[in-house]
């Protein structure tokens, strides 16, 4: 999938990936790739600006843990993030239905 197409929906995808359980940056990227069967194979550096943006907007919260000898920052969805995800998913479904009707093959 073209990365330009993905960028407009990256925030929603990240929120969706973190809905079930918290994760650190690398794990978010892995989950995106696995859940999409490799279709969402993003340039890894592009995910971090989105994580920082969502955290600043209050949709994500982060905390630091230690993994082995390394410090690790784990992101989790906030209540505001869950609300935002619900709204964005509804918008996306409405958009996808409309696009589906537009491009449907004529009977």
């Amino acid at each position, binding site marked *: 999938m073209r990365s330009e197409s993905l960028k407009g929906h990256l925030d929603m995808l990240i929120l969706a990936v973190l809905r079930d359980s918290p994760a650190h940056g690398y794990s978010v990227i892995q989950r995106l790739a696995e859940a999409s069967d490799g279709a969402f194979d993003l*340039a890894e550096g592009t995910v971090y600006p989105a994580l920082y943006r969502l955290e*600043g907007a209050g949709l994500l919260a982060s905390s630091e843990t230690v993994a082995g000898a390394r410090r690790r920052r784990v992101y989790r969805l906030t209540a505001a993030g869950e609300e935002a995800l619900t709204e964005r998913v509804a918008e996306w479904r409405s958009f996808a239905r409309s696009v589906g009707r537009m491009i449907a093959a004529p009977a």
Partner: protein
Amino acid sequence: MTRDPIADYLADLDRRLRGRPNRERLLAEAEDHLRESEAALCASGLGADDAARAAVVRLGSVRDVARAGGGRSAAGIVLAIGAAGAVGLMAAAAAKDPGYQDAPRPALPLHLFFGGLGVAVLTLCVAWTVWAASSARATRGAVVRGAMLTTGMTAAIALGELAIHLGKQRLYTMYCVRNGEPPHQLVCNPHGTRDFATAELHALVCVGAALVVLAVTAYAMHRHARAEAARLGADGAAATAQR
């Protein structure tokens, strides 16, 4: 002995993040990402060196990763606008005041006052807009400090220009009174060296006042940066304590 591409990458990132309050956090996050990516690539069959190189390539350029933390661009925008306003003020002052020996124009301080006020308001508006549009805490902090610096510079310039004008106006009035002529009907031409010396004294006072304003601004910026770094550090410490 081969160099570690990940260590080189982190050293370069460290240099680029110098002065940022969230430097520790970004470095730790990048290192964790790169080491985990390297381990995964090794597990998939790549050699250690190739895995490290591939991990670096997949993360992206150091410049982009450093930019992701936010801060410099936003502060740069605010500073550029503030600097443009300050240069505009000085250009306007130079255009309004063609020569030292001419009488000062009464409207000049008002122009400077409202010009300085306009630059300060514009700077704060831009800072607020960037603040609202951005989300990274580091960006917000940099914007606040950029606004502090710009406002301080503008205040220093406006203060200095105002003091210079007042000093020159005083010289002009003294000269006219000495010659028994109404100030608004003549063009002053103070040739005496004492007049010039007084003007120089006023100029020095202006420079001193401007330096004081800039010093206060720098101190406020320093305090703000330290407080922000402490807050970011406290976040990490609190998380560690929770484990």
